[in-house]
């Protein structure tokens, strides 16, 4: 029987925290890239693509993230791809993040007044130039606060990867709780670790929201 001191618990949780952070970053960056690409498609190709993307968003927002993880895990295996929990979690969380981000960002682009597009076009800018020089700089300023806020969602979402066997903070907590017979202490610590990770991000998002950010136009 191994004795677990509080120090052992904290040290092991801190080691597992790395994987929560790594998975969050991968999902957030990957989701940002996919979301950005989808947004560009939406802007360039117009309504029909818009409806397709709205369906994509609806699918991810209308089903539990846990089941999306399962589907990625079992689905990839079905395709004959050797899946680790790592790959499945990264894939599912990336797509999940992209769906939310494209929705947030679309709102921000639409908040830029139509006149800005028209003014840019009247200067004979191409579509790409309108986007790059006129629309995106304004939309981006609006987007920063909700995007940072969504990062908290992503970090919390990674906890579900524990269910398909990815050893991050929550999974490590479960394992230590089983070994140490101190579930109250261990899950309390796990919760505090998440809090320590998420709360500063929440505060930054709130702060950004309050700041009189770029009043577009």
């Amino acid at each position: 029987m191994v004795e677990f001191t509080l120090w052992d618990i904290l040290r092991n949780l801190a080691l597992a925290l790395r994987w929560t952070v790594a998975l969050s970053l991968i999902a957030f960056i990957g989701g940002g890239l996919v979301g950005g690409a989808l947004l560009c498609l939406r802007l360039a190709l117009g309504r029909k693509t818009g409806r397709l993307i709205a369906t994509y968003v609806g699918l991810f927002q209308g089903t539990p993230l846990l089941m999306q993880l399962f589907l990625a895990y079992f689905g990839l295996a079905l395709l004959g791809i050797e899946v680790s929990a790592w790959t499945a979690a990264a894939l599912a969380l990336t797509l999940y993040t992209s769906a939310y981000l494209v929705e947030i960002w679309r709102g921000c682009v639409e908040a830029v007044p139509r006149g800005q597009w028209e003014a840019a076009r009247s200067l004979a800018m191409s579509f790409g130039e309108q986007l790059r020089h006129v629309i995106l700089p304004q939309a981006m300023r609006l987007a920063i606060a909700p995007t940072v806020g969504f990062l908290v969602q992503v970090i919390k979402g990674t906890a579900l990867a524990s269910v398909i066997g990815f050893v991050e903070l929550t999974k490590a907590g479960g394992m230590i709780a089983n070994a140490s017979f101190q579930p109250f202490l261990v899950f309390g610590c796990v919760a505090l670790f998440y809090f320590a990770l998420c709360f500063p991000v929440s505060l930054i998002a709130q702060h950004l929201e309050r700041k009189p950010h770029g009043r577009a136009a």
Partner: protein
Amino acid sequence: MIEFDFSAVLAEWPLLLRGLAWTVGLTLVAVPLGLLIATLGAWARACGPAALRRAVGVYVELLRNTPFIVQLFFVFFGLPSLGVKLSPVTASMIAMTLNLGAYGTEILRAGIQAAPRGQWEAAQSLALGPVQVFTRVILPPAFKRVWPAMTSQIVIVMLGSAVCGQISTEELSYAANLIHSRNFRAFEATFVALAIYLALTLVLRRFLLWAGPKWFFGGAPRG
């Protein structure tokens, strides 16, 4: 070549139906209780004494900045060591209720803060007591203002109940896992469960957006 066999999953429809019933049941319990906590919390945040305001603030931030699954594990695995033994269903309900309560508090608080000062004053000048001012004058339009956001949050809590299967609450995701442990049709079982969740989301959202103004905050004036 991949072959799908959905019939093996659909043949287990009684299990799916039971799972669906549990998911709906959990939601039906957690939503009214969660909204009650949200109302009390929002009241405390808006007009409670300073100490209470801070305590509610801590509750809200603690729950909003930790994952639901950890909250659930804390309630189910953690509390028994303090002598509170809970069944999976009770633990799920408590976790879902507290979760919705925290998010709901924050949502509703925004709605209350948007009430113009004059409404408080007008209500007070009609000699309404502080409770009446809050429940009759401030609260209904506040709910009306934030109802779309509250609806989204309720849907999120309903979807979050999928996690409750992890502590063997027999809701829909648990049913899907049970089915694929019987017939090894993991992808199909998950896919069918996802489709049911999606339908449930659409129905629940429609229902809430319709039922809220009709029954809940009735003829509240536009605030």
